[in-house]
């Protein structure tokens, strides 16, 4: 540190002491000979001290300023969970989906790591959007912070690329078709577009080469992000933090040292943020995902409604609002790139919206525009939705290109305070924070509201023993459901990801080992080749998976009138239905995750005579009230009295449906009980720690506020 002391006089704001002398920021003093020896060779202690301890930070920062720290934390969470997931993931089109399922089922705490990573991506974007809107509200991009802001836009772009690449890796239907749509953006490039797309794919379509390179890049980009984050933080420490007044600190009275003041405040709010994160990861881990992504990728069938992850929705709406391919893609990229030019598009000399009455209103209109665009992005591209998307897309660009430049000239700002310490700020931020969090939550939910159901009625809600924070499977019900599966479903549907040993594992039907072994022995699986090279059948063992009823898809179709009975291993998570407003918001708080099971019960019990005027498309289809399009290929599978229960439960279609669905929910989510149990412990811990950190923060800040 000794070499550049002069740079640190008053750095970063040219601070003065109260007497008007240049203020010298405290320097790192190595405490002993060893540290001095290191410091004179590698001044890392001074670097860290100057960055994280003595760095002067404006004393009036509100909680919106804690999101920078939260973002760094989330980047670390994503990198750690990601590196761990890579240890178990197989980037191959034939194995990717099943390796992710193996993580969910077999790897120790694999379900936790994957749910943290998947929901962590969403939390990362929640934090980055709050961080960006905060920068826009307080004019943080203005001189001298232009490069700081542009680096931020670059990080955001890299995050979007990383998120997209990561979403393709589980190789589900949404992975595959999302990758198809996004890579096709580049086909809009004139002349060379097609060649570029072929180059991106490494083939004539999305395939194994695509998956492997996406995997490689998904691993690379987070480290690029980390590199740009270092530049971002470096730039921040040169120009210093903006603050809610937008008035630069002048004297030492305007600032506090980063540690302990900002450190403890950041930690407190990070902990609060983790409560929200844990709520999603432990209780509603699939809320932000799409049921379709639990269907293995199928290059032959596009899902009826392709929707990107929630954090891309506003840009997706911009893309779709423009009827020309090239122009649409340009608008999408332009809408993001324009943000990098904000320092020059905004012509006002005043930074903070607090002192800009007109801008403040336009800012909130802009926020609303982004939210509504997000909602529109989740809706089908038809009718009024398209019109609304066009109007709002136009407004998005008008705001950035016309309103911002003009406002600087026509607006009369309010009088700015002379200094930070003189300013008295209203404490409206908490209410605004709550409003924004609810708004973001609402945007999340839109992703769920997007599966086209061809106007089938909503399935009735069934009361499940496994719903809610304390939910547990009903062992008797799982055992009965398994009986229904074996005696009815199994004739056509495979259960290929479930092993016989699972039947005896904790948190499931909990058969005894002997029972599970007896079940296994009734099935035949292929043995290893014998000494003559012949492959014979042998009885299955606990380690084996349930064998499929048909040798391949063709055989299955041939036996089922052309229809392919889907594998049932993750079926309960691969189905759902549109919840609609405002239910999807309430679902976050009620932890509703049973859309799949409710739908399955509805379909199993939804066979009726077709209403007058409804024509079934073929003789091998059947009318079902809840099936999308109403024509289902599966004949009514259950009838009263078909399966004998030994435990006195009613032998009715209604009961069978619920039991087999509960069994399938367990098959799809075998660690549900462990997840909810751990979730409760984690939440309790985080709430206690948040409380402690809150009081610690109050104590630390006591002198500043006094």
């Amino acid at each position, binding site marked *: 540190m000794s070499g550049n002391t002069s740079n640190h006089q008053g750095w970063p704001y040219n601070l003065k002491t109260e007497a008007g002398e240049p203020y010298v920021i405290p320097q790192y003093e190595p405490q002993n000979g060893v540290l001095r020896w290191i410091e004179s060779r590698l001044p890392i202690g001074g670097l860290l001290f100057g960055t994280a301890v003595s760095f*002067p930070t404006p*004393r009036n920062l509100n909680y919106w300023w804690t999101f920078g720290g939260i973002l760094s934390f989330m980047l670390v969470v994503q990198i*750690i969970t990601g590196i*761990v997931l890579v*240890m*178990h993931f197989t980037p191959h089109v034939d194995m990717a989906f099943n390796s992710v399922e*193996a993580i969910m*089922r*077999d*790897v*120790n*705490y*694999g379900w*936790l*790591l994957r749910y943290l990573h998947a929901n962590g991506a969403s939390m990362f974007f929640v934090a980055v959007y709050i961080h960006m809107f905060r920068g826009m509200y307080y004019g943080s991009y203005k001189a001298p912070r232009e490069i700081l802001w542009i680096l931020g836009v670059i990080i955001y772009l890299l995050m979007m690329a990383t998120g997209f690449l990561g979403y393709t890796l589980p190789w589900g239907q949404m992975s595959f078709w999302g990758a198809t749509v996004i890579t096709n953006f580049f086909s809009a490039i004139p002349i060379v577009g097609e060649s570029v797309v072929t180059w991106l794919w490494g083939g004539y379509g999305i395939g194994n080469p695509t998956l492997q390179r996406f995997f490689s890049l998904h691993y690379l980009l987070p480290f690029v992000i980390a590199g740009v984050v270092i530049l971002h933080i470096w730039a921040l420490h040169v120009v210093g933090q903006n603050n809610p007044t937008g008035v630069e600190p002048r004297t*030492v009275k305007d*600032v*506090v*040292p980063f540690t*302990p*003041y900002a450190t403890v405040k950041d*930690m407190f709010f990070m902990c609060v943020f983790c409560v929200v994160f844990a709520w999603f990861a432990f209780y509603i881990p699939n809320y932000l995902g799409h049921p379709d992504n639990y269907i293995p990728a199928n290059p032959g069938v596009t899902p009826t409604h392709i929707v990107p992850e929630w954090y891309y929705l506003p840009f997706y709406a911009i893309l779709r609002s423009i009827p020309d391919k090239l122009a649409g893609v340009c608008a999408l990229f332009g809408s993001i790139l324009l943000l990098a030019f904000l320092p020059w598009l905004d012509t006002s000399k005043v930074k903070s919206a607090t002192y800009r009455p007109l801008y403040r209103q336009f800012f909130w209109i802009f926020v609303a525009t982004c939210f509504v665009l997000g909602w529109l992005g989740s809706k089908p591209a038809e009718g009024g939705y398209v019109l609304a998307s066009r109007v709002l897309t136009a407004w998005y660009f008008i705001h950035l290109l016309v309103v911002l430049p003009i406002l600087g000239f026509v607006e009369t700002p309010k009088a700015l305070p002379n200094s930070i310490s003189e300013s008295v700020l209203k404490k409206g931020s908490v209410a605004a924070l709550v409003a924004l969090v609810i708004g973001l939550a609402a945007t999340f939910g839109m992703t769920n509201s997007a599966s086209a159901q061809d106007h089938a009625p909503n399935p009735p809600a069934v009361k499940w023993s496994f719903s809610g924070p304390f939910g547990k499977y009903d062992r008797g019900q799982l055992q009965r459901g398994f009986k229904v599966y074996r005696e009815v479903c199994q004739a056509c549907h495979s259960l290929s990801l479930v*092993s016989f*040993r699972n039947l005896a*594992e904790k948190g499931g039907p909990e058969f005894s080992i002997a029972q599970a072994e007896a079940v296994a022995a009734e099935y035949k699986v292929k043995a290893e080749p014998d*000494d003559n090279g012949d492959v014979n059948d042998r009885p299955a*063992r*606990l*380690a084996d998976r349930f064998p499929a009823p048909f040798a391949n898809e063709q055989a299955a179709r041939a036996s089922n009138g052309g229809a392919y009975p889907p594998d049932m291993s993750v079926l309960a998570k691969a189905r759902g239905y549109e919840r609609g407003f405002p239910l999807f918001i309430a679902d976050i708080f009620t932890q509703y995750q049973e859309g799949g099971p409710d739908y399955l019960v509805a379909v199993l019990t939804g066979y009726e005579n077709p209403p007058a005027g409804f024509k079934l498309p073929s003789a091998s289809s059947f009318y079902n009230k809840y099936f999308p399009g109403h024509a289902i290929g599966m004949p009514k599978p259950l009838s009263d009295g078909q399966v004998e229960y030994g435990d006195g439960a009613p032998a009715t279609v209604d009961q069978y449906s619920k039991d087999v669905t509960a069994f399938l929910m367990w098959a799809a989510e075998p660690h549900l009980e462990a997840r909810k149990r751990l979730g409760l412990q984690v939440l309790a*811990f*985080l709430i*206690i*720690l948040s409380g*402690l*950190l809150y*009081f*610690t923060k109050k*104590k*630390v800040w006591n*002198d*500043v506020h006094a």
Partner: protein
Amino acid sequence: MTTMSSDGHSRRDFLFIATGTVAAVGGAATLVPLVAQMNPDASTIAAGAPIEVDLTPITEGQAIKVFWRGKPIYISHRTKKEIEEAQKVSLADLPDPQTDAQRVKKGHDQWLVLVGICTHLGCIPIAHQGDYDGFFCPCHGSQYDTSGRIRRGPAPLNLAVPPYEFVSDSKIKIG
């Protein structure tokens, strides 16, 4: 800049220590899943279940290799000569003293079942080779006798005997 005043020290210290302790406990707890995930997963453990081997096709003087938990297991049908050699060695000559009887199942002297992994650095020794008519490790020259005991070379211990039992006279269950 503001500095902290010194009043109310003890109450403040208690709060800081309590907060730090709780945070440290939480940080340590997050290591549990990160460490546990590297242990064998449930399918690997299930695949490591015991296996049964039929001994009838193994002729006298023949040694076969089967795999259990990914490890090569030697099953050697020893000749009279090999058994005698193994039994008459004086324990004093052995770096890792063990009688032959301790390494086979009572009444099944002809069957030697070994984990075929050299106790030096994990290579697979070759059966029926070396100066002791037992196993010879080509990597670093360790030599084992007809009971799989280390006789010469850098390996410190005898070849391990896996857990196994005779289900019948001609069938064993390993694991």
